[in-house]
């Protein structure tokens, strides 16, 4: 017999279920218990860069919007720094780069405001195009789904992005690019996430 490795095994995931809001977004779900709800303000008041709004839906395999989903966002600031000791540099006071959003229980629409992130460093060389990391949990999703959202007005950076270029099927890369529109107020990016179908969003095993 050989020696044994002492590695522990990762705890198994289970679905967040239909009542995830109670635990992770009680205020947003109309449940007043905490003095401070986490994840409501992603960028904080001092963040530099363009203020933007991101909206979308999560669509199931029947083509219907999912009305009980919770999405977590993780992003860099306008300088391309994450609010973390290994995040590449300082961030503005109050910038966390992390947030939570739940869908409207009737329509399945979600939306949040933040700042547009900058380019971030690649694994060793080069840079990544501006993007948000998204983590999606809901009833019926057994392991949280990781995806990324890129920006339609960053075509040149997107074309050089090492992660987008990992996706063998070029037409699938478009599922990760949100479409910019401008009107009164901040620019809006539309990002619908499709769990199944020909235009299924790309999800990552990170």
């Amino acid at each position: 017999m050989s020696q044994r490795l002492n590695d522990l095994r990762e705890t198994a995931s289970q679905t967040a279920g239909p009542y995830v809001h109670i635990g992770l977004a009680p205020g947003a779900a109309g449940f007043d218990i905490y003095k401070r709800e986490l994840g409501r303000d992603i960028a904080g008041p001092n963040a530099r860069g363009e203020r933007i709004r991101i909206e979308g839906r999560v669509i199931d395999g029947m083509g219907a919007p999912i009305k009980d989903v919770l999405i977590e966002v993780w992003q860099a600031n306008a300088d391309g720094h994450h609010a973390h000791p290994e995040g590449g540099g300082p961030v503005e006071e109050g910038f966390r780069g992390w947030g939570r959003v739940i869908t409207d229980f009737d329509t399945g629409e979600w939306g949040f405001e933040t700042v547009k992130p900058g380019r971030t460093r690649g694994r060793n060389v080069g840079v990544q195009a501006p993007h948000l990391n998204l983590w999606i949990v809901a009833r019926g999703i057994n392991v949280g789904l990781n995806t990324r959202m890129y920006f339609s007005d960053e075509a040149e950076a997107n074309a050089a992005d090492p992660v987008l270029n990992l996706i063998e099927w070029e037409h699938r890369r478009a599922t990760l690019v949100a479409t910019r529109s401008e009107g009164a107020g901040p620019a809006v990016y539309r990002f619908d996430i499709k769990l199944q179908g020909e235009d299924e969003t790309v999800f990552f095993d990170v």
Partner: protein
Amino acid sequence: MTPQGEFYQRDRSLHPPALTPDYKTSVARSPRYALISLQCSVSEITGPVFGHGDIDAGDNDLLTNFAQPGESPIGERILLHGRVLDENARPVPNTLVELWQANAGGRYRHKKDTYLAPIDPNFGGCGRTLTDENGCYVFRTVKPGAYPWRNMVNNWRPAHVHVSVFGSGFAQRLITQCYFEGDPLIPICPIVQSIPDQGAIERLTARLDMNASIPLDTIAYRFDIVLRGRRSTLFENRLEGN
């Protein structure tokens, strides 16, 4: 740059697959294409950092955090405690642990829950805390009740507490459910049984912990949580590959 590398590859054989037809809701909500495997970049190695300014001292006490003064929720008083470790068996300190659950009758305080069991006016059903420097956490709550759910016509969830944990990097993000030792509903629950590995199910089952129980007051269960570990880059700081 850090001397630590990326997270170990997630062992998907310990997790439920996306499509688990006996858990019917998964059928229309499971991606059909293979996940694209991604070596961690800075976006996955980093993750939100929380501190004591984010939460309040009583947030981990579900016996009092929603109760009227002098009252407490109905049910079996329990301590739910344990450690958050990584796959290298290192404690994960200062990480946010959040939980939510049904009350002792099996009813959630949520407008979409219409089960017959009553709402408990003294029970909210959520709590949160930060692990200490040794990765330890503790909650005080009531043991949740089993409840029926619409899947097949006579499915009942075993008593469970939903648990959310962060770790230090977004790639470690985890939501799971904690079950309780000896519950006969565990082996017949389609959500539990979505996990293909029996050992992984046992590791989701909290053990009765008499030594941590408070005599004549509160009985204890222990639930340890393991997050993904990180590789040490022993010879150079460069991440493997590009």
